[in-house]
């Protein structure tokens, strides 16, 4: 059987099977087992690349495989974390941490089933070489992840789910329009059939009608940009991330946003191949949306009262940095692809730590969390390391990748962009430092029930932050070569 197909089918079958399983122990075993198999298969794909299937529609190219590896690694970490999380979430009625009412959790079978289907749809996004199939897969990720946000069955998570469903579905409907516009642009290529295959579009991109291609790119950017959390289409993101269980937030931020970015990168790839005029058009739009996202995120981070929402806005910021890096071209593209890896690892790790904090302090308010380092030494240390990593401080990988993006801006002679980028990064650093350091230091304000820190809640974030640290000190040569290849493919140097 083809490896790429197996990568898609294993979590899909396991996910469907999970709905029929009643035993929680079996469900958790299935979750971790599938994650291990999936990451093993993904790793095997690097050594033995699978041949394209379905006439080249499904194929893992370098970019897709890199994003899939990130998704798969994060999912493995999340599945281990989820076992501890599900054990902590005792069955029966729960007390809400903010308003004190009682609510029920969704059945564990639904939760595990949707998690696995979510992994399967994200795999399909990475492996789609056809724009139509890509669209179907991205919409499917929304539908598979919506029930995950509604795990805690109360009115706030319901509100977040509704916003997520409606805003993302509308956004993705606009991306469908982008698909049709791209087909129109491609009519000179395919007189008889409309094959929206990435490979053939890139090969003959100069023949595409530029007016329709521009229109198509705008709709792709707005459509997938909604899903990716680019401002001003990001409004679903803070609500969904703050109300979803932390393990789901980690997957949304670390894996799902990257997959939406992949949709934009595919469209940008066609524009880059279509000639300098089209490349300048798509690049300038990416730079614009990138800076706007960073600015919006900075404003909301500075006055944020809720630490999970702060992490969510930080995701908006980093998606902005990625769009900016891709748009700037040159060495910034290299930086952006590396930053996508660093951001995923760091943000997932921070959401795991946030979940640990929420479980013990039973509040999401930054004001009410004090003395993390004393109450939860391991989580507190991870929280501080995560803070330095996410704000791009040395020696973490994010510092290196953010520096590459700055270098790209300066190389391109775009001083204004470089200054704005630095100023926004500094503002966000100040905003986050005020909250993170305050939370870590001091003494706990009220008697906190110490439940102890179990290994499944500490090891996944610790491994992820270690990976970011390693990437800051040493990028393995094969990864370096891969990043160079991808940067060239996406119009960088």
């Amino acid at each position, binding site marked *: 059987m083809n490896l790429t197909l197996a990568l898609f089918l294993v979590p899909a079958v396991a996910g469907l099977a999970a709905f029929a399983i009643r035993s929680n122990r079996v469900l958790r075993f299935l979750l971790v087992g599938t994650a291990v198999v999936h990451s093993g298969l993904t790793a095997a794909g690097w050594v033995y690349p699978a041949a394209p299937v379905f006439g080249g529609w499904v194929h893992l190219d370098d970019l897709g495989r890199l994003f899939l590896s990130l998704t798969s690694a994060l999912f493995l970490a999340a599945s281990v974390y989820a076992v501890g999380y599900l054990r902590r979430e005792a069955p029966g009625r729960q007390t809400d941490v903010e308003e004190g009412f009682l609510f029920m959790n969704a059945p564990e079978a639904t939760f595990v089933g949707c998690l696995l289907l979510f992994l399967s749809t994200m795999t399909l996004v990475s492996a789609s070489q*056809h724009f*139509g*199939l890509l*669209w*179907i897969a991205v*919409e*499917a990720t*929304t*539908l598979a992840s*919506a*029930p995950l946000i*509604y795990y805690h*069955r*109360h*009115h*706030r998570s*319901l*509100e*977040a*789910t*509704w*916003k997520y*469903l*409606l805003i993302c*579905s*509308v956004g993705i*409907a*606009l991306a*469908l*329009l982008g*698909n*049709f*516009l791209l*087909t*129109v642009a491609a*009519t000179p290529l395919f007189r*008889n*059939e*409309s*094959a929206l295959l990435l490979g053939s579009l890139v090969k003959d991109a100069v023949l595409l*009608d530029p*007016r*329709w291609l521009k229109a198509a790119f705008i709709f792709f950017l707005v459509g997938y940009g909604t899903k990716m959390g680019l401002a001003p289409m990001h409004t679903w993101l*803070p*609500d969904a991330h*703050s*109300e979803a269980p932390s393990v789901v937030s980690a997957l949304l931020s670390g894996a799902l946003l990257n997959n939406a970015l992949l949709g934009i990168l595919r469209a940008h790839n066609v524009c880059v191949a279509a000639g300098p005029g089209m490349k300048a058009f798509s690049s300038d739009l990416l730079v614009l949306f990138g800076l706007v996202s960073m600015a919006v995120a900075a404003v*909301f981070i500075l*006055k*944020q*009262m809720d630490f999970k*929402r702060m992490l969510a806005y930080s995701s908006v910021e980093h998606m902005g940095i990625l769009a900016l890096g891709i748009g700037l071209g040159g060495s910034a593209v290299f930086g952006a692809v590396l930053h996508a890896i660093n951001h995923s690892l760091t943000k997932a790790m921070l959401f795991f730590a946030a979940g640990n904090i929420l479980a013990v302090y039973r509040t999401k308010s930054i004001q009410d969390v004090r003395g993390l380092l004393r109450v939860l030494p391991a989580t507190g240390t991870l929280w501080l390391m995560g803070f330095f990593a996410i704000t791009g401080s040395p020696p973490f990988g994010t510092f290196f990748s953010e520096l590459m993006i700055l270098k790209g801006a300066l190389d391109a002679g775009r001083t204004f962009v470089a200054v704005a980028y630095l100023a926004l990064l500094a503002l966000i650093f100040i905003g986050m430092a005020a909250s993170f350091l305050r939370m870590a230091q001091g003494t706990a304000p009220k008697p906190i029930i110490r439940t102890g820190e179990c290994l499944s809640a500490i090891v996944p974030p610790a491994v992820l932050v270690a990976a970011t640290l390693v990437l800051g000190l040493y990028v393995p040569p094969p990864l370096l070569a891969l990043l160079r290849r991808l940067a060239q493919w996406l119009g960088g140097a």
Partner: protein
Amino acid sequence: MNTSIDLVMVCLVLSNLMLVGSSRIAVCIRFVALQGVLLGLLPLALHHWLLAGASIAIKGTVFPWLLFRAMREANVRREVEPYVGFSTSLMIGVAALGISSWIASRLPPLAPSISPMILPVALFTMITGLFLIVSRRQALTQVIGYLALENGVFAFGLGLVREAPVIVEMGILLDIFVAVFVMGITIFHISREFDQIDTEQLTALKDTPS
């Protein structure tokens, strides 16, 4: 053949005006289903029997059934006090029709499509859908807006793309079906949680401290 296609176009325009002007949700559900059936008829002109059949079956029968069920469960009959009143909505609808025609006339010329009217009609349907989503408060009406938006995009694709791969169209249809299904379940939960499906209730999540 051309007369019947033109008739379909006129019906689509009228159904859009009904959608923005009607306060009764049952009427909106019927008209958005009618749009789906009319759009399902168009692929027949291109001899896509499978696509036409699936599209008519899902948009003409399954969606109205799901939406009527959600309507009964949530016990809502009308869109009361929308953000934009119904007569104003109707006027905005007429203006949107004018704007759509103007935009369509300014787009670069196309390869022959099934009708010269398809572009303005598709744009008008998309704008109607977006307008319904932002101007109505009932979750159910917002889903109807989403369906109208999808219908518009679908019409756009039909008008511009001669031969879309059927498998992609079927995948899109499946996605929309699951989307409406999930939204229906969510509406059911909203009605149980809040005793109504007015999205004005969904304003607890914001950034300023309350």
